[in-house]
């Protein structure tokens, strides 16, 4: 019988054998999934920008990834992300806070009608305050915005019904909300559309309790739709671009990430249907020596994303790196019509 509980712990539980004497490029026991994720599981994805990488990998490896607003097939691939396609399971753009997530679902169910309807510029072009960059130059007018938003929210409303696993990357605690109805915006008005007015908008920095409460509300709502739904949480390793607090941006970032990490950990510990994948630790923790960051120490290099994703897919037992997605846009030119065109050419010009 061991003399203390640590004696029976595996090597990964000790800093020396788990970290300092390990080649961290080959670290594979950092994540032990709680539940199976195979290609029959319907997966939806949302969150801050790092979540895009996770969704992209699920698609690339041929998993059953839900995309309810697929890009038009004739739109070139390089424009997909420009117009907000192919980023997440619907065209909602980045969702930085759990509050933004639950308010989006409330809007989709018509239970929340925000005061802030649109940002209209001097030319009459309209931006959606809840996804201001979804059309790079804004919508042509308010009618076009509303038409697109109705369709978008109808797709969001159906998303949870079609989801077995919801992947969410917690991004920020700092946000801006409308004073009139406490609706949270993804970006500060005046940055990507809109005009900042301190009488209309106020800064909000969510704390642990609020973040946990919002996540619990989301989980409850999602499991109302599908009682067997599971959740995979990650925390974005991307630091704040800027803080609106009176703090230096570095401690403000550490506060934000600490709250989010603690909430993810608490939920994962409490529920067997919630798992936490430590992509944050694999990229942002100090043993990684910032080697997966670009020189600005903010943007994550592709190698870092690849390393984290390799660890994840290895852990869930999937070795199929670089499988191309099966639903890639196909060329729009139908072969039968081409044959007729060639036939017309041959008939006419062989005379």
């Amino acid at each position, binding site marked *: 019988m061991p003399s203390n509980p640590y004696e029976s712990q595996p090597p990964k539980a000790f800093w020396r054998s788990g970290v300092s004497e390990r080649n961290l490029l080959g670290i594979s026991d950092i994540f032990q999934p709680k539940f199976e994720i195979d290609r029959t599981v319907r997966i939806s994805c949302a969150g801050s920008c790092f979540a895009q990488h996770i969704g992209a990998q699920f698609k690339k490896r041929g998993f059953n990834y839900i995309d309810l607003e697929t890009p*038009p*097939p*004739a*739109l*070139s691939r390089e*424009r997909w992300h420009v*117009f907000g396609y192919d980023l997440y399971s619907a065209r909602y753009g980045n969702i930085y806070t759990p509050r933004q997530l639950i308010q989006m679902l409330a809007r989709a169910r018509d239970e929340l009608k925000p005061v802030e309807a649109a940002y209209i510029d001097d030319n009459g072009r309209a931006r959606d305050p809840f996804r201001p960059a979804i*059309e*790079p*130059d804004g*919508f*042509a007018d308010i*009618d*076009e915005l509303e*038409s*697109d938003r*109705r*369709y978008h929210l109808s797709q969001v409303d159906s998303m949870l019904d079609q989801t077995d696993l919801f992947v969410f990357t917690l991004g920020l605690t700092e946000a801006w909300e409308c004073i009139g109805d406490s609706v949270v915006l993804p970006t500060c008005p005046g940055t990507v559309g809109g005009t900042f007015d301190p009488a209309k908008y106020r800064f909000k920095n969510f704390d642990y309790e609020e973040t946990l409460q919002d996540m619990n509300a989301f989980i409850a709502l999602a499991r109302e739709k599908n009682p067997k739904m599971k959740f995979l949480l990650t925390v974005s390793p991307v630091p704040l671009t800027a803080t609106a607090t009176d703090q230096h941006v570095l401690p403000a970032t550490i506060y934000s990430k600490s709250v989010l990490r603690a909430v993810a950990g608490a939920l994962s510990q409490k529920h067997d249907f919630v798992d936490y994948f430590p992509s944050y630790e694999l990229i942002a923790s100090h043993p990684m020596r910032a080697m997966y960051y670009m020189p600005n120490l903010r943007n994550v290099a592709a190698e870092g994303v690849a390393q984290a994703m390799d660890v994840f897919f290895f852990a869930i037992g999937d070795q199929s790196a670089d499988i191309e997605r099966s639903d890639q846009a*196909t*060329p*729009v*030119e*139908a072969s039968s*019509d*081409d044959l*007729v*065109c*060639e*036939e*017309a*050419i041959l*008939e*006419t*010009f062989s005379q």
Partner: protein
Amino acid sequence: MSLFICGNSHTAAIKQGMIRVGKKPADVHIFALGSGAYETAPFSDLRNDRVFFSEPLFTERLKTATSEESIDDSHIWGLVTGTHNSRILRGEFWKQAAPTYLDHPNLRPVSRAVVDAIIDDDQRYIRTFLAQLKQINAKFFVISCPPVRRNSVIAESGIPLDVIAAIDSRARQRFTDWLTEQGIPFIAPPEGTIDDQGFLLNEYSQQKTVGGKRDPHHANADYGTLMYKKVQEFLAQNYPDAMQAAS
């Protein structure tokens, strides 16, 4: 100096029109490069003041018709290209989607900007080719493909007619706007061949191929005759020397 009219499969109707008219400018040749499918990928290169085709089929047909493997500034070119818009409309997407400015509340809305991006994507390699010709100071003009037909395969596939008309019209507008910006002459479809919604009139539609198959989208010899006459008028005004043998 020769006159070459060439392009996608819609060139065939103009060839039939030329045969009907029975007389031609001094040294005119009409030939097809290949179907519109080749226009969706890069198909031309600019090297040493000549434009080459990177698509082997185009090169082969260019060589057969002109004995040259590339285009320089020594001839006049009428190019049938850039308005073959049924290509944008094919497939399942537009059965379930419509531009936001049309009244289709049950279809997925597509913003004007996305529609324009789709159109620009479809035209980009054609525009590249035409810009290369401008760079070498080639003498050329663009001849419109006929508008989409009401009885085309895309219309019969279930895509609403107003969606087809709106996309075709918008694509034509963007292409001709671009040509105008570039100073490239454009010969539009002949007057009287198009209905109020912008579709090619049925009497100008090619119904069957010579082999007896249904032809889903080309114009016929009647249309080609009218278009060939428009080309002649254009040449008479802009390249009178090329028309000497026709008078």
